[in-house]
C-alpha cells in the first residue's frame, strides 16, 4: 500500500546539516585516524605509508596490554560500588516518607557537574601521602602509625582512580534509577501491598526485576565510559610501574607526549575494537536473559 505521507525530497535538505556536520567533524577524523595508523608520522615530516606495522607493534606491546588490565580493574572497582550506592540511595530517596528528597538528589548529583580533572586534582591532594588529609586524619584517630604512600601503591592507586569515577557518576546513576523506579506503575505496588508483601519482597520481586532495562542502560554506558577513563586518572599519575595507567592515558602519552601520532592512531583503533567487543558482550548478555 502506498504511504500517504508526503516524502518530499526537501526533507533530506533539512536533515543534511547534521550529516554534513557529522561527516566533517566526526567521520573525516575517524577515517583520517585510520589512514594515519597505516603510516609513520611524527608531526613534522610527511607521513610515510608503512602498512600494518603499527598494528603488529600494538599486538606485541606489553605496555598496551597492561593498560587494558588496569582499565578493567579500575572500571570494576568503580562500577560495583557506584551501582550499589546509586541503587540503595535511589530506593531510599524514592520512598514517599523521606523529606527533602529533591535536595538530596541535587546534592548527590553535584559531583557530576565538576570536571573529572578537578576531581582528579582534588583526590591527588587529599591522598598526598605527606600533606594529604586522609593520612593526617587516619593518623590522628590512631588507625595509622606511619603514613601510607597511596599513589605509589599499585592497588591503592587504582582504587583511588576508581573512587574518583565512582564519586563523579553515582549521582547520575541515582537519577537514572529514580527515573526508572518512577516509571513502574503504582498499581503494581498497591496490589503487592494488598497481597501482604513486605518492603523487602517488593524491592526484590518488583522493583529490581522491572529495573532490568535501566540496569542494562547504565551498564552499557558505563562499559563504554569506563573503558575510556582518562582525565581523572591522568591527574593522579601512572602509578608505580604504570599500574594505574589506563588505555586512553597510554594513547595520550603516545600521541601527544611522545608525538608518535601514527602509533597513537593505531592504539586508538585497538581501543575502539576492545570497547566494541566489551559492549557487544554486555549487549549479548542482556539479550540472553530475556
Amino acid at each position, binding site marked *: 500500500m502506498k504511504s500517504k505521507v508526503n516524502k518530499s525530497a*526537501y526533507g533530506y*535538505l*533539512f536533515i*543534511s*546539516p547534521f550529516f*554534513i*556536520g557529522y561527516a*566533517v*567533524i566526526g567521520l573525516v577524523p575517524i577515517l583520517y585516524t585510520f589512514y594515519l595508523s597505516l603510516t609513520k608520522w*611524527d*608531526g*613534522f615530516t610527511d607521513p610515510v605509508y608503512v602498512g600494518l606495522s603499527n598494528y603488529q*607493534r600494538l599486538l606485541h*606491546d*606489553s*605496555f598496551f596490554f597492561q593498560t587494558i588490565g588496569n582499565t578493567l580493574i579500575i572500571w570494576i572497582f568503580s562500577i560495583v560500588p557506584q551501582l550499589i550506592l546509586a541503587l540503595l540511595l535511589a530506593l531510599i530517596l524514592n520512598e514517599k516518607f523521606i523529606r527533602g528528597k529533591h535536595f538530596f538528589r541535587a546534592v548527590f548529583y553535584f559531583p557530576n557537574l565538576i570536571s573529572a580533572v578537578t576531581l582528579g586534582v582534588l583526590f591527588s*591532594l587529599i591522598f*598526598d601521602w*605527606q*600533606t594529604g588529609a586522609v593520612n593526617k586524619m587516619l593518623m590522628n584517630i590512631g588507625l595509622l602509625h606511619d603514613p601510607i*604512600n597511596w599513589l*605509589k601503591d599499585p592497588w591503592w592507586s587504582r582504587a583511588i582512580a576508581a573512587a574518583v569515577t565512582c564519586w563523579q557518576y553515582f549521582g547520575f546513576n541515582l537519577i537514572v534509577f529514580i527515573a526508572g523506579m518512577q516509571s513502574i506503575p503504582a498499581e503494581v505496588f498497591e496490589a503487592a501491598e494488598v497481597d501482604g508483601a513486605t518492603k523487602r519482597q517488593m524491592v526484590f520481586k518488583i522493583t529490581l526485576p522491572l529495573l532490568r532495562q535501566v540496569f542494562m542502560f547504565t551498564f552499557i554506558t558505563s562499559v563504554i565510559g569506563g573503558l575510556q577513563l582518562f582525565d581523572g586518572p591522568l591527574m593522579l599519575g*601512572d602509578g*608505580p*610501574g604504570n599500574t594505574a595507567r589506563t588505555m586512553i592515558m597510554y594513547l595520550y602519552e*603516545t600521541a*601527544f*607526549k*611522545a*608525538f*608518535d601520532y601514527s602509533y597513537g592512531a593505531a592504539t586508538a583503533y585497538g581501543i575502539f575494537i576492545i570497547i566494541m567487543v566489551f559492549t557487544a558482550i554486555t549487549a549479548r548478555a542482556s539479550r540472553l536473559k530475556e
Partner: protein
Amino acid sequence: MNAKKWLSIVLTASMIMILLAACGKGNSNNDSSASPAASPSGSASPSASASAAPADLKGHLVIWTYFDQVKQMADKFTEAHPGVKIDVQIFPGDQYETKLMTALQSGRNVPDIIDLDRGYIGKFLESKFLADLSAMGGEDLVKSYLPYVQAYGRSPDGKLKAISDNSSPGGFWYVRESAKKWLGTDDPDKISSMVDSWDKVIELGKKVAKDSGGKVHLIQSASALNDIMSYNTASWVKDGKLNIDPKWKDTYETELKIRANNVDAKLPFMSAGWGSALNDGSVILTSMPSWAVFMVDNKDGKAKGKFGVAKTPQGFFLGGRYEGIYEKSPNKELAYEVMKFIASPEWQKYNLEKTGNMPGNATVFDQNQDTFKSDLFGDQLILKTYADQMKAMPALQANKYDEGILSKWGKVAGDGLEKGASYDQVVAAFKKEVKNTYPELQVE
C-alpha cells in the same frame, strides 16, 4: 516552484553555509605574518639592519609563546622601534607544543617568531622549520654567551637556530633562619663548601636528621640528583643506540644512600609539600632553578631577605626558553632584529633587574655580579654564586630524544627508589620503556 519551496531551499542553503563557515573559521584567520604591510623596510644585509636607526624599522611581527613575560620584551623592543608592531600571542599550558607542531606542519597561521622550551626544543632544532641564524650573522650575537646556553640552540650540524635571553641556573635555596639553626651558618660560601660533594651531603644530612629527631631533612628529594646530573652526563643517544652514561650508576646509588639515611624528605618536585617545605624551612636545601621564584610566598614582601642560595655539588640548569625564526616567514630580517635585541646585554640586564631572569650572555654576568642583588636574597650577590659553575657547564647540544628519555629515567628511577630496587633492575625497566616509546633506537 512556490514561495514555500524557495524559502525551504534558501533556509537549508543558509544553514549549510553557516556550518561550513564555522568549520572553516580556524583557517580564515589567516597568516597575519603574510600581510604585505609586514615587510620591514630595513631589509638589506643583516649587518646593515644591525646598524639601522630605530626609525628605519617598520613592520608587523607575530610571536607565539607560552610565557607571559614575552610581552615585556615586545614592549621594550617597540619602545625603541616605534615603527614595529609586535603581536604576542600567549598559549599557556602543555598544549602549546602540539599547537605549534600543527601550525608548522600545515604551514598556515605560523608566527614569525617561535618560543621553544628546553624540554622539547631538540626536535624543532632538527626540523626544517627554523631559520639558520648563523647565516644571518647570529654567531656574533652569541659569541659572549655562556657556552651551554648558546650550544642548546644549535641543530646537530652546529648551525645556530634559536637564541635564549636567559640561562636558568640552579642552586640550593635555603631559608636563612633554618640554615643557621641546623647548619650553624647562613653564609652561602660556607654552606656551598659544606655540600660540595654528594658524600658531604649525605654526612651532613645524617647529622641534621639525627639532631632533629628525623623531623628536618637536608634536601627535598633524592630524585633531584637526576635533574642535576642530566646536564653533566653524556647524551642518552649515540649513533642510534641508547647510551647510558656510567655516571647514572653512581647517581642512582647515591640516591639510594640518601634515601636510606633519611637525608631527603621524599617530596616530589614542585608538589604542594615541596612548596611548603621550601617556604617554612622544614627542608633545609632545595635545588631550584633561578626562575622558580613564584614558588616563594612573598605576600607583602614577607620573604624579603629570607633566602640564601648555595652551590650544588655540580652546576646545573633547569628549563629555559629559546626563540627562533620561522624559516618561511616573510619578515625574517625584522624578526632577526628581535633576536639581536634579546641577545643584547642591554635587554638582558633590564630583564634581570625587572624579572630576576638570569642572563644567557656571560658579559651581563661579569658586569653585574658584584652589584646585582635580589629582594628574596637580601645582600647576597647571587650572580656571583652562579657564575663560576655556569661558565664551566658543558656545552651540550639538544636532540630530539634526550629530554623524553630523561623523563623515562626519572620515572623508572623514582619507582626504583621507592622500592629500593637495584641499579640493574632499574636499568632493565628503563630499557623496556625506551624500547617501547622509541622502537627506532637500538637498545642492548
